[in-house]
């Protein structure tokens, strides 16, 4: 890679691309999620609370897109997942992300969501230690892609990590054990994570990697199929079971408790068997852009 190509990250085009990515992610719900909400709305009993709540969701989605206003006041933690060619400076990438976040916050597309836990002071620009989250991975070829997830705090609070075996839940170290603990997480979340949610699950890994990998799963489109047949089957079973719990939109009762379940796996230490669940609210805000070597970019 030439020096010029590396510099595509520090140029004005890259900042503009990141800013546009944030803006669209905050205001425009992805098509697959909106379609899933529409199907759920049709599926719920006519005039039920669940159906009314889902139509209010869809009204909000339409209005946010039309007026270019953030869908939810909690624009969450901005998490950037970046695949880059070899040789790019991560420091440059991180700075560009932080600058774009600060600009989007100044323009009210993000809420200032970075609070110092020691002094209780809000940094005011949504930038702080560890915020935004920037996760880089070196990919093949020259393509540079940036996926952004805006992860709300209410749904983040209902995520859970289990260490199997779990006697109380009668969960052993097998797919059935995973099913049992994941359904426990859904039950405990009730409506508090803004149901109907989407689950990102990681089987294995350590306490840190488990959470990160579970978030990676949330970047997958709702309609995709897991290439691993065991995980694909587990995803279907958990989704089906969760939607029989009756939790429904916002936990006020109904048929739609989850819109999707996405499971990944990481190798584990022989002593450890973690199942990590990240709950994404119904407003699953994620978008991805691809930036070419000449600096042009587009939404994927």
């Amino acid at each position, binding site marked *: 890679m030439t020096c010029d190509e590396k510099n595509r990250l520090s140029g004005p085009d890259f900042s503009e691309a990141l800013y546009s990515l944030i803006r669209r992610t905050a205001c425009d719900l992805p098509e697959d999620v909106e379609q899933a909400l529409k199907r759920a709305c049709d599926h719920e009993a006519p005039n039920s609370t669940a159906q009314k709540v889902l139509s*209010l969701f869809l009204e909000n989605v339409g209005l946010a897109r039309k007026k270019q206003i953030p869908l939810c006041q909690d624009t969450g933690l901005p998490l950037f997942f970046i695949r880059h060619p070899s040789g790019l400076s991560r420091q440059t990438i991180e700075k560009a992300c932080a600058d774009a976040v600060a600009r989007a916050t100044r323009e009210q597309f993000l809420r200032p969501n970075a609070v110092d836990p020691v002094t209780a002071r809000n940094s005011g620009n949504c930038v702080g230690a560890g915020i935004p989250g920037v996760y880089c991975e070196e990919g093949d070829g020259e393509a540079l892609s940036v996926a952004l997830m805006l992860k709300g705090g209410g749904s983040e609070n209902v995520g859970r990590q289990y260490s199997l075996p779990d006697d109380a839940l009668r969960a052993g170290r097998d797919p059935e054990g995973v099913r049992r603990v994941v359904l426990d997480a859904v039950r405990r979340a009730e409506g508090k994570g803004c149901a109907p949610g989407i689950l990102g699950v990681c089987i294995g890994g350590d306490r840190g990697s488990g959470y990160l990998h579970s978030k990676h799963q949330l970047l997958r489109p709702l309609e995709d199929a897991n290439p691993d047949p065991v995980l694909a089957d587990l995803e279907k079973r958990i989704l089906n079971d969760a939607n029989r719990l009756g939790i429904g939109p916002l936990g006020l009762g109904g048929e739609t408790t989850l819109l999707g379940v996405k499971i990944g796996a990481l190798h584990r230490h022989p002593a450890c068997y973690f199942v990590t669940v990240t709950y994404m609210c119904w407003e699953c805000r994620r978008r991805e852009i691809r930036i070419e070597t000449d600096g042009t970019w587009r939404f994927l």
Partner: protein
Amino acid sequence: MIELNIPISEDRILSLHAGDAVAISGIATTGRDAAHKYMVERLIEAKGPLSKEDRCLYDELKTIYRGGAIYHCGPIVRKSDERWSIVSAGPTTSIREEGYEDKVIAAFGLRLVIGKGGMGPRTLAACRAHKAVYVHAIGGAGVTSAEAMVEVLDVFKMEEFGLPEAFWKIRFRLFPGIVTMDAHGRSLHAELAEQFDERLARILG
């Protein structure tokens, strides 16, 4: 749809039941984590005499909350031409205030607690004792909620708490929600939770 205008009388609250759809109008404030901690620890249960600033705010909040409402919300706000407006402002999860809300209801005479996700037995008992209800707003509906928050009248503790956590004094017009905890001791959340447990037990076998 039942219209509620702040200030709200005890009789009006007693006429409400879990499951009722309501639309709220009048002056209220937002208040979430920092606000609740502050109200309980530094105003209601203050160890010594209040500073002049705290005394002033305490009096102001008493005036707003008597027969009134608090909204669990950390809005996105915009300032243009020296005037604040609300951009996006759906509810935040209420259960984090469970340790504080009963004291706040009792101290101020609140009639409405607005948020999402429901609250626990302490708040339910306070609703019954002091004649208040919990109103569930539409989680995630930042834009439609903001449309019912028509005017920003003032803001308190903005510097100390930051924009999302400040008390925003706002004029509400037909703000929509559903009563899920009433003053008769009924909580839809508690009732539904029993159903969820039964169903989960059946699914897990």
